[in-house]
């Protein structure tokens, strides 16, 4: 854990890469779709072979905050050939869209089964310190701002309430014949994130976006961690 943060600090970075962020989260017991760094196409194929197809490929760069904006995300790669091709094309796209970005390689992860998209995040409030947010993903968070906050540390009842506080709750409870999402799994993920944030004051911001909520379980599919400016 300390290594990842120390090395980011040594590079003068506050934004951790997806691969780094997910490693920290996994160590904290937060269910996350692990992503593995590949610096070469050959390594990318090796990882994909090991994980099993289909896989997702995402650009890894400390300078790129929004990967899809630069064509840095490809999903549904079904075989080795597709992985090699995607690698080459992604490098070309990113090179064109962000010519000055330092590129570490790509992250390969198993293509997670689609679930209901939710967001779990944290930030540092100037008065109250770390706070946690929960909401439904996509337009619900971006346009409708249908989210709930709590001040860290959270108790069980806080997680329970914040999940039920959002207007979009019926979507999680299952509409139009959809299976209801596992609210307890979401609550447990929220509480683990609260613990994680409380024990790591060097984390200024965190976005798990999206987290896939399933009828059984929840999985953070993308993750981003921002460190504080000054080492805490």
């Amino acid at each position, binding site marked *: 854990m300390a290594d990842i943060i120390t090395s980011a600090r040594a590079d003068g970075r506050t*934004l951790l890469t997806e691969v780094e962020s997910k490693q920290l989260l996994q160590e904290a017991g937060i269910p996350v779709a692990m992503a593995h760094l590949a610096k070469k196409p050959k390594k990318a194929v090796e990882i994909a072979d090991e994980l099993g197809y289909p896989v997702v490929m995402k650009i890894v760069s400390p300078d790129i*905050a929004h990967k899809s904006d630069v064509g840095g995300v490809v999903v549904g790669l079904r075989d080795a050939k597709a992985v090699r091709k995607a690698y080459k094309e992604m490098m070309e796209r990113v090179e064109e869209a962000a010519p000055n970005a330092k590129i570490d390689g790509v992250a390969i992860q198993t293509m997670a089964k689609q679930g209901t998209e939710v*967001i779990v*995040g*944290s*930030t540092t*409030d*100037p*008065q*109250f*310190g770390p*706070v946690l*947010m929960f909401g439904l993903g996509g337009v619900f*968070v*971006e346009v409708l*701002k249908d*989210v*709930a*906050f*709590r*001040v860290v540390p*959270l108790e069980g*009842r*806080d997680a329970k*309430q914040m999940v039920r506080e959002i207007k979009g709750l019926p979507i999680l409870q299952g509409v139009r014949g959809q299976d209801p999402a596992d609210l307890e799994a979401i609550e447990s993920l929220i509480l683990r994130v609260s613990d994680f944030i409380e024990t790591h004051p060097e984390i200024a*911001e*965190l*976005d798990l*976006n999206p987290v896939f909520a399933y009828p059984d379980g929840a999985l953070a599919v993308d993750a*981003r961690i*921002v460190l504080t400016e000054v080492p805490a």
Partner: protein
Amino acid sequence: MNVDRERLHRALNPKTVVVVGDKGPNYQWLSNMSEFTGQLYSVQLDEKEIPGIEEKGITNFKGLMEVPGDVDLVVCAVPRQVTPFIVADAVKKGVGGVAMFTSGFVETGEELGAQLQEKIVTAAREGGLPLVGPNCMGVYNRRLGVKFTNNQEQGEGGEISVISQSGTHGIAITVGAQHLGLPITRTISIGNAAVLNEADYLEYLRDDPDTSVIVMYLEGVRDGRRFAKLLREVTKVKPVIIWRGGRTKAGAKAAQSHTASLASDDAIWDALLRQAGAISADSLEEALDVLQCIVRLPRSSKRGLALIAMTGGQSVAITDQFEKGGFDVPELEQKSYDKLAEFFVTIGGSFRNPFDAASTIGRETDNLAKILDILSEDSHIEGVALEMQARDFDQGTERVDGQVELVLKYREKTGQPVVALMPEGSVGQMAPETITAARYYVAKKGVPVFPSFSRGAQALGRATRYWAWRDETGS
């Protein structure tokens, strides 16, 4: 700083008060203390001011160090340049604490003000001196008659304490509550809260046996983490009403994450108050409204209300508002309907719940008594909201007394909350000033009363949610 609790206690419950730097012609601070039950002294160097002080029968000294015996509270009203000397003397003399009225510090935004504040803060911290303020009205203690305005009452009673970042609002809450017959036991106007902060005062009130309900006016807090943690503890023992001023959507800043971009100051405050079980109020009225319910009514988290309005239109309006406030308006038990049918005038009236009752409840209270009797035996009903009539209040209090007596009897018998609503435009067409007078009269008799259905519904809703939170947390 590490608060010396024993010293702070002396400052807030003083036996000896010294006012430093009061000025004529009004001698505001010394005059405020005219009902102080302890020993009052003045410190003033200015020869022009001394005769006026002595005329009031108050002994004046040239310096704090000359005052004989222990001093519990120094009220400091000197010009800002002089404050460092007063603080130094207060430390040397070992006074309980200083309430610093003097302003002109960080709140001015100028360099000199900030430097002076830094100076007195450092001296107070090093000397372990509890300093209230600066830039504040200081300390009110009802029982002891320590006041910062003449409107504050002196006497026994009071279980409500107030902490206010604004002197004006501290006074408004105190006096407003007094008008409702709710005596405030102590008010602390905390100003810049430079030495003692919001959390320090909250901690004091948590442990204060004279305080069972806390009202705060806050715009922001200095030690947010500690405040948040403490608030969660305190609300499990004592209700805390927080009127937050300066609400703003700003604070959500340009950030790298979605979460940070949505975390406005307002969103986080709302979250904290909910999480900590505090009662949130947006205005003075809301704070006083819910205060009535918290102090006067029995603890209840139940939501099934009987709504008694006087006309058909009002019975619709009262239902709209109480449903919006989170309440249910259940049907009564059949046995209640049977009993009501025996006397209730259903031509131009109704008793399904809500009640449309003016045709049944006339100038006599006999039928109101019967209705309340029936409701008290009905297992569907867990509380009552009653449109109380101010009719004839300009002729005498008898009619209102009758209604109040019945409400108090019902409350006593059932342990349920009852609120009274006395809106203008009610039956009887009384003049607004008569209705207002009747309302304060009812409030003083111990029945929470509101000038509109919506305010009553919101206030009772807030109180009910608070007690539900206590139930949930097993506290």
